[in-house]
């Protein structure tokens, strides 16, 4: 990774600007505080409705219920955002990484030990999401950590898998979510409406696929470029400036 010159001793901006900014920030914080303070101390918000409909949602953890049933549309779009970020990063073409031949033994050992633990742990997180804090995103994050660890060890995804199959897995979470969501429309239900009895299973299925996609896409984001493209290609300049 090319060293980024992190000029620590940046030229300090003049005292005057810093002072005015400070005052402004203080003013902003004060007004925000006042606004928050003026809010009622007791506010139920939507906790009542959530509690009432939890058993209908197929999961017992209210957050997952909100996340994957009541406001599942948000989550759908959110997966889209993640995928979008990936498209964006890949479109930038990424910087050519220089492979350092030296493998750090400690790192090598640790990764051999930790990677399976991470995978196991992410599986658990996925499962526990139904009734305790956890779920697809947290599991995906852990999975990604495993991926990062591997990349630090100069692990390379075989060329064979880095093409269509990689892209398919990346996209799997979103596609499955949409498929399930829209599937029931043909059984004269509304988009993203699950039959109550199947809700639990469906949510788990969606979460599993989401975890997989999130994990791999976060790892790919860390890698920073499209593995299927040969790494030595310089940043390809636009065809028309």
């Amino acid at each position: 990774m090319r060293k980024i010159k992190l000029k620590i001793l940046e030229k300090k901006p003049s005292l005057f600007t810093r002072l005015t900014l400070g005052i402004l920030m203080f003013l902003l914080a004060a007004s925000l505080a006042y606004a928050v303070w003026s809010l009622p101390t007791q506010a139920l918000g939507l906790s009542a409705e959530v509690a009432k409909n939890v058993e209908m949602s197929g999961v017992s953890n209210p957050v997952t219920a909100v996340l994957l049933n009541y406001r599942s549309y948000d989550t759908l779009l959110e997966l889209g955002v993640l995928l979008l970020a990936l498209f964006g990063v890949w479109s930038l073409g990424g910087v050519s990484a220089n492979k350092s031949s030296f493998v750090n033994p400690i790192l090598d050992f640790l990764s051999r030990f930790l990677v399976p633990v991470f995978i196991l742990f992410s599986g658990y997180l996925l499962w526990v999401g139904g009734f305790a804090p956890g779920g697809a995103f947290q599991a995906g994050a852990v999975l990604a950590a495993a991926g990062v660890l591997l990349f630090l060890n100069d692990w390379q995804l075989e060329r064979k898998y880095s093409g269509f199959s990689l892209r398919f897995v990346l996209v799997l979470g979103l596609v499955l979510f949409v498929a399930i969501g829209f599937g029931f429309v043909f059984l004269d239900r509304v988009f993203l409406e699950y039959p109550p009895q199947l809700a639990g299973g469906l949510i788990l299925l969606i979460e599993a696929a989401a975890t997989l996609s999130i994990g791999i896409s976060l790892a790919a984001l860390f890698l920073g470029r499209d593995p299927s493209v040969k790494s030595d290609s310089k940043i390809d300049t636009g065809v028309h400036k």
Partner: protein
Amino acid sequence: MTPAFLYALVGIVLFSIGLYGLILYKHLLRKILAINILGSGVFLVMVALAARTGDAVPDAVPHAMVITGIVVAVSATALALALMLRVDAETGQAVLPEDREE
């Protein structure tokens, strides 16, 4: 001074610090970090105020929103970092053109 308000206050302070950092520092990495602080400030306020439901279980909807917010922030930061690298590669220094002090 309910604990919810206290945490919210911390969130607000984070928000202001994030904004301060974003404005003042020239280096893109510092700016991206400032944006993240800004984001976490907002999320903290969101979660803190969710705890005003009286009984132990806080309101779940803000929590779900925060999760979505966090994912969005992550992907935005990823894109920002990738862009910063490209800026650095293209212009030799990770600073926006107007902030460049030649």
